């Protein structure tokens, strides 16, 4: 009885679809509630405190941008983030490239190392670098044994240590997505460049780099933004005299109880971070929704 069957099936289907549209919203309520209450409200409250405490007005921002100490913190933060991004790019691009073309046997191994390093506890990694980089640490002793240096270098409690530690942490975050970009490029395109007469440098400059540019740009932006807001590694490897923005925020709250200024610093960090992500979404197309948005 084909007619009877279809007359039952079609309305059932339609009813399901309709009710699903509203039920979908109900399903999201718990998460929505949690995020509004324990995420949105606290963050907005913190930001509001920057213009409300100790008295309403912009004095926190004036202080933040007017004081030598705080401007120095901003400078440190942006400089470290910039240098880390640069080094990560210079080292990460060849690594991602190799990972993209290596025979599977070897690329698996590289993958495992990258994932292991990425998922190893942040403190464990930072601790290792503190020990490795200290005056009597392995790095200094190896360099001295090799005759590269006579005196131990000061590698921790300054921005050198922070840069090394941050580069270590950021490398996988650049290499993994960039490797995906490079994998998506058809090797035949590069073969075509070669038969067209392009030397390897020309192929790199005129074909591979332009094709990898979206991946390079979004990876670099991500590394830069993440570096701006990092707390643990700069705090442990940078010592107290070389402070970065995240550490400043924590200090203002924990030691100085200056919530207004902390709110202002948080606001600056937030604006820069979200602004750069917006740039990425807008211009680099990373916004193609990662989820099941149909």
């Amino acid at each position: 009885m084909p007619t009877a069957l279809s007359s039952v099936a079609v309305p059932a289907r339609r009813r399901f679809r309709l009710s699903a549209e509203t039920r979908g919203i109900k399903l999201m309520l718990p998460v929505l509630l949690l995020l509004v209450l324990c995420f949105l409200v606290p963050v907005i409250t913190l930001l509001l405190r920057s213009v409300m405490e100790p008295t309403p007005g912009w004095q926190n921002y004036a202080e933040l941008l007017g004081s030598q100490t705080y401007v120095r913190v901003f400078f440190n933060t942006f400089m470290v983030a910039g240098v880390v991004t640069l080094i990560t790019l210079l080292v990460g691009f060849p690594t991602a490239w190799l990972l993209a073309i290596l025979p599977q046997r070897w690329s698996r191994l590289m993958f495992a190392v990258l994932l292991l390093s990425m998922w190893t506890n942040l403190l464990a990694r930072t601790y290792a670098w503190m020990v490795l980089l200290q005056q009597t640490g392995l790095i200094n002793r190896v360099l001295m044994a090799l005759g590269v240096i006579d005196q131990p270098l000061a590698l921790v409690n300054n921005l050198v240590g922070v840069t090394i530690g941050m580069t270590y942490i950021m490398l996988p975050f650049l290499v993994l997505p960039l490797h995906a970009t490079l994998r998506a490029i058809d090797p035949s395109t590069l073969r075509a460049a070669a038969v067209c007469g392009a030397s390897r440098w020309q192929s790199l400059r005129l074909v591979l780099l332009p094709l990898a540019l979206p991946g390079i740009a979004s990876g670099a932006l991500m590394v830069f933004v993440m570096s701006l807001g990092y707390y643990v590694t700069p705090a442990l490897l940078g010592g107290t005299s070389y402070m970065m923005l995240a550490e400043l925020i924590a200090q203002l709250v924990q030691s100085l109880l200056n919530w207004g200024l902390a709110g202002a610093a948080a606001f600056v960090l937030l604006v820069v971070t979200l602004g750069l992500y917006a740039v990425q979404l807008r211009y680099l197309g990373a916004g193609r929704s990662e989820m099941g948005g149909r």
Partner: protein
Amino acid sequence: MLLDYDRLGGWRWGLVAIGSAVMLFLLLPIVFIAALSFGDSQWLVFPPPGWTTQWYQQLLTDPVWVNALLTSAKVAVMVTLLSVVLGLLAALGLARSRFFGKSALQAFFLTPMVLPVVVLAVALYAFFLKLGLTGTLTGFVIGHLIIALPFSIITIGNSLQSFDSALEDAAMICGAGPLEVKWRVTLPAIRLGLFAAAIFSFLISWDEVVLSIFMASPTLQTLPVLIWSTLRQDLTPVIASASTLLVAFTVLLMLLASFLKKGSRQ
């Protein structure tokens, strides 16, 4: 030719050299602390003069460390359960509905992932101070949950996307009720997504430092918090052993994850 490994000529060795150096760089600290944790030098001399398990004994007999370990585990398990359940609900909601502003809502769900953790930590700290939730398990769980949820939603959302909703309709037409459909058809199909979300959530909670520092009290702290506060005083090898345990645990979970992935392909 630049993307053909065996036709790269001399450049191949350049890439291999850089790649190998990076791999060594990435492995060095991990291998190094593992070795240190078994070395008998209080002053972290490397290579150590002798080998010992005394740091592990110290770690596992000191009630402070043991308590921190237990707290970490408790928090991580709760976060995992909540994150998977709530993440599943949200992902289902997003995948199976259409309304104005949906993509904005989706973006909102993912913001905790891109926000600097320190901002969230300070904001939550202020909030929980008022509510008296600092230094409580609830505080830890809520904090970790907020940063674990985006990963959960993405992972489960991806597996839902590859799962054909026509299957649900088919089950529906065969006479199954809506709840039964979810239970019998949808859940088994996205099982792997759920496992992945669980592993992600667990690791995020287990490794979380910044939020935890602000949530902790002297009597209630997770393992990373304890490592953090110990680190600020000295670099004792006990931390090396604690770190090694954390790494070992991570490796275990990663192996489990890759095992599950392999199983899914068969």
